[in-house]
C-alpha cells in the first residue's frame, strides 16, 4: 500500500512528541476512575443509604444529569458507579480524543508541517493513519487502566466482566468521538473549525441523551453517549453497544481516510467564505478587536448554553408530576418540609450551568495568552495601546461574557421550566444564577494571575476549573471534607432557591476577584512578552 508508506515511522515519531501529553491525560482519567470507586466504596458501604440514594436518583432531573437510573432494585456500589460516573467520564474521554485527533491531523496540516512530511517519500494516508493508531493506542490504554483499577479497587459488586466492559466502553467513547473528529478534520479547512464541529457533535449527543433519558428513550440510543451508557456494566453487562460503536467507528474512519485520500492538501470540503475588505470602526477599538477575536466561539457557546438550559428546564417540569406518585419521595419531603427535592435539583443544575459559563469566559481571557504565543500580541503592544488597555479589554469582555451567559442560561432554564408549568418564579432562578457571578469572576481572577505571573503554566487554570466542577458535581455524593470543598469559589455560593442570597459571600468573592485581577495585571505590566 503506497498510500501508507512510512506510517510506522511517522507513528513512532508521533509517540515521541505526544507521550508526555498522553501521560498527563491518562493520569487525569485514571484519577477520575479512582476517585469514583474509592469514594463510593468508602461513603456508601451501607446498603440502606445506597437504596435511599437510588430513590433520590430516580427522577427526570437527576437522570438528565447522570443518565437513566439503572440497577435501582439492587443499587450496589457497582450499579451506583456505573450510573453516576459513566456519562461524565464519556465526555471527559471524548474531549481528550477530540483534542488528540485535531492536534495530530488538521492542526499540523494548517501549520504547513504536513506539507513538509508529505513532500518526503511518505504515503498520502500515513500521517492520518498514524493519528488513528495514536487514538486507538491511547483509548486502548485508557480501557486497560480503567479495567485494572476497577478490579483492584472495586468491591464484590464490581465483577470482572463489568470491569472489562466499563474499560471498553470508556475506550470506545474516546474512539467514537475521535473518529467523528477524523471526519470533521477533513470537512473543515482549519483546526478550529474541525474542533468546533467535533465538540458540536459531542454537545448534540449529550443533549439528545438528556431528552432521551428523561422521556423519549429512542433518542438516547441515537446518541453515542446514550448508546454506550446502555451497556450498563455491573448491572446487566450488555455487550451490543460495544459492537455497534466499533462498527460506527470503522465506518467513520473509512470515510475519513477516503476523504483524505481524495482531497487536496490544505483544503476542506466545506467552503471558506470571503472576508471583509475593511476593518469596521468597532474592530479598530481594543475592545472591539477582542470581541472580534472571540466572536465565533462565543456564538457557538451561546447556542449550546441556550440548548442546555432548555434541555434541563424542560425536564425539571416533569419532576412534580412524578413526585406526586412517589410515596417514598413524598415521605422524604414530608420529613423535612424546608427541603424541596425539586429545589435541590434546580440549585444543582444552576451550579452546573454556572460552571459551563465559566469555560467560555476563561477562554476569552486565555486568548490573550494565545495571541502572545503566536507573536501577534507584540504587534498590538508595539502600537499605541498601553498594556493596561489590552489586558483590561480582555478582562472586560470576559466579565461581560459571564454576566450575559448567566442571564441567557438562567432565562432559558427558568423560562422553559415555567413553560412546562412547573411552579417556579423566573425571577428567582435568574437571581440564583446571578449569585454565581462573583464565583466565576474569582476563576477569571485566578486565570489573570497565571497570565501575569506564570504565563507558561496558564493552562493550569483548567485543572482548577476541573477541580471546582468535581466539587460541585460530586461534592455531595462523595462526602468530601469541607476544607477541600472550600477551595472552590463555587462552594461558597448560596444554593438558591434552597438557601438565602448572601451579601457577605457576594461582596467577599467580588473583592477577591478584583484583587486577583489587579495582581494579574501587575505581573503582566512588568513581565517580558514572549
Amino acid at each position, binding site marked *: 500500500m503506497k498510500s501508507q508508506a512510512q506510517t510506522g515511522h511517522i507513528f513512532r515519531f508521533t509517540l515521541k512528541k505526544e507521550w508526555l501529553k498522553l501521560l498527563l491525560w491518562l493520569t487525569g482519567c485514571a484519577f477520575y476512575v479512582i476517585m469514583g470507586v474509592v469514594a463510593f466504596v468508602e461513603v456508601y458501604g451501607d446498603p440502606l443509604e445506597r437504596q435511599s440514594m437510588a430513590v433520590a436518583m430516580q427522577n427526570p432531573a437527576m437522570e438528565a444529569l447522570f443518565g437513566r437510573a439503572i440497577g435501582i432494585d439492587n443499587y450496589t456500589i457497582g450499579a451506583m458507579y456505573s450510573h453516576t460516573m459513566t456519562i461524565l467520564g464519556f465526555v471527559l474521554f471524548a474531549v481528550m480524543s477530540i483534542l488528540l485527533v485535531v492536534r495530530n491531523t488538521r492542526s499540523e496540516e494548517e501549520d504547513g508541517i504536513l506539507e513538509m512530511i*508529505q*513532500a*518526503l*517519500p*511518505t504515503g*498520502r494516508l500515513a500521517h492520518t493513519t498514524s493519528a488513528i493508531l495514536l487514538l486507538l493506542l491511547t483509548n486502548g490504554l485508557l480501557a486497560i487502566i480503567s479495567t485494572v483499577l476497577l478490579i483492584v479497587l472495586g468491591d464484590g459488586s464490581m465483577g470482572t466482566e463489568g470491569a472489562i466492559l466499563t474499560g471498553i466502553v470508556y475506550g470506545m467513547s474516546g474512539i467514537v468521538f475521535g473518529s467523528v473528529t477524523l471526519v470533521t478534520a477533513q470537512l473543515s479547512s482549519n483546526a478550529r473549525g474541525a474542533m468546533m464541529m467535533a465538540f458540536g457533535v459531542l454537545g448534540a449527543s449529550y443533549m439528545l441523551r438528556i431528552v432521551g433519558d428523561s422521556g423519549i428513550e429512542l433518542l438516547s440510543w441515537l446518541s453515542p453517549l446514550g448508546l454506550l451508557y446502555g451497556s450498563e456494566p455491573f448491572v446487566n453487562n450488555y455487550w451490543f453497544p460495544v459492537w455497534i460503536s466499533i462498527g460506527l467507528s470503522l465506518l467513520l474512519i473509512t470515510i475519513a481516510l477516503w476523504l483524505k485520500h481524495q482531497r487536496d492538501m*490544505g483544503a476542506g470540503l466545506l467552503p471558506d467564505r470571503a472576508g471583509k475588505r475593511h476593518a469596521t470602526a468597532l474592530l479598530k477599538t481594543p475592545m472591539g478587536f477582542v470581541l472580534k477575536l472571540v466572536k465565533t466561539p462565543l456564538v457557538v457557546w451561546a447556542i449550546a448554553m441556550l440548548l442546555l438550559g432548555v434541555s434541563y428546564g424542560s425536564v425539571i417540569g416533569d419532576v412534580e408530576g412524578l413526585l406526586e406518585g412517589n410515596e417514598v419521595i413524598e415521605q422524604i419531603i414530608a420529613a423535612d418540609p424546608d427541603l424541596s427535592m425539586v429545589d435541590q435539583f434546580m440549585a444543582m443544575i444552576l451550579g452546573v450551568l454556572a460552571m459551563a459559563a465559566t469555560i467560555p469566559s476563561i477562554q476569552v481571557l486565555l486568548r490573550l495568552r494565545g495571541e502572545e504565543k503566536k507573536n501577534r500580541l507584540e504587534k498590538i503592544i508595539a502600537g499605541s495601546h498601553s498594556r493596561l488597555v489590552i489586558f483590561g479589554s480582555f478582562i472586560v469582555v470576559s466579565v461581560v461574557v459571564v454576566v450575559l451567559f448567566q442571564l441567557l442560561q438562567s432565562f432559558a432554564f427558568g423560562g422553559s421550566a415555567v413553560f412546562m408549568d412547573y411552579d417556579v418564579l423566573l425571577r428567582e432562578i435568574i437571581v440564583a444564577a446571578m449569585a454565581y457571578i462573583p464565583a466565576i469572576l474569582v476563576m477569571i481572577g485566578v486565570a489573570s494571575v497565571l497570565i501575569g505571573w506564570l504565563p507558561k503554566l496558564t493552562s493550569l487554570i483548567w485543572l482548577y476549573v476541573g477541580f471546582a466542577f468535581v466539587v460541585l458535581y460530586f461534592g455531595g455524593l462523595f462526602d468530601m471534607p469541607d476544607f477541600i470543598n472550600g477551595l472552590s469559589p463555587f462552594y461558597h455560593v448560596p444554593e438558591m432557591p434552597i438557601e438565602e442570597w448572601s451579601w457577605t459571600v457576594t461582596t467577599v468573592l467580588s473583592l477577591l476577584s478584583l484583587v486577583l485581577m489587579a495582581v494579574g495585571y501587575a505581573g503582566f505590566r512588568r513581565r517580558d512578552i514572549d
Partner: protein
Amino acid sequence: MTKLIEIKALEKSFGKTIALKNVSFEVNSGEIVGFIGPNGAGKSTTIRILLGLIRADAGTATIFGKDVWKESVDIHKRVAYVPGDVNLWPNLTGGQVIDLFLSMHGIKVDKQRKENLMKRFEFDPTKKCRAYSKGNRQKVALIAAFSADADLYIFDEPTSGLDPLQERVFQDCTREVLAKGASVLLSSHILSEVEQLCDKVAIIRQGEIVESGSLSDLRHLTRTQITFQTQEEIKGIEEQPYVHDLIREKEAIVFQLDADHLNEFLTFIQPYTVLKFESAPPKLEDLFMRHYETVKGGD
C-alpha cells in the same frame, strides 16, 4: 537530455478562483530552471501539484516520467523540497527535525556533510523550534534538503528569510548539487538570484506561462537600455515605434529600445554624429517588470 519534469496544459481551480489556466514547461536533467511571477500567479500551486499535495483538474504532470499524484511516494525518494514558509514542531530541536526528515527520506545520510552544512549556514541545531526565527526555520529545511542526495531539488522561495550572506551559501550549495548532476526548480522573487543561478526561466502570470526559455533567448524579446549623446540635436526620435520611455537628460538621451530593432535605430542616429553610446544588457528584472506592468494595466 532527458526530461525530468514535464508539465503539460495544467489546470487547477479552487472554487471559483482559477489558479492555473494553462501551464506547460519542462525541466531537463542537469538543468536549473527559474520559476518566476508575481504573487498569486500560481507558482506555489504548480509546485504543490508537482509534489502530489494537490491534484490538477486537467493536464498532465510527470517527474522522472512518473505521474506526480499516483506515484508520489516513489518520486519523493529522489526529490528534496524546501517551502518558503517553514513551520516546525515547536517542542523539538532543529537537529531532531533535520534527522527526522532525513530518516524519512530513506537516502543514506552523509553525517559529515550535514555537520558541514550546519556550519556553513551558521545554524545552531540544539535550540527548540519555537525559538527559531523564520530564517532559522528555513535553514532546517535547507540543511535537510542539501544533506539528501536527491536527483531533483524543488525550492519555493527558499531564501525569503535569509540574510544576504546566507543567500550566498544557498547559491553555493545549489551550484554544488548542480555540479553533481542534479536538477533544480527554483521559484523565487529574488531576480538577481535567478539570474545568477538559472539557465532557463519560466514566467507565470495569472495562471499562465507567458514566457519560457533560456535566458539568452529571452533577452531578444526584451528591451535594451540605451544612453547616447549626439553632436547635433536629434529630432523625431520619440516617434520611432521601437523607442520607449524616453528621457532627455542634460546632455544624453536615455530610453528603452526594442532589442530586435537595434539596426534600424543605429541607421537612424548615424547622421547626427554620435559622441557617446552605452547599451546595458536587459536584466531579468526588465523582462519581469514588463509582465508585472501588464498585470497592473489589466486592473
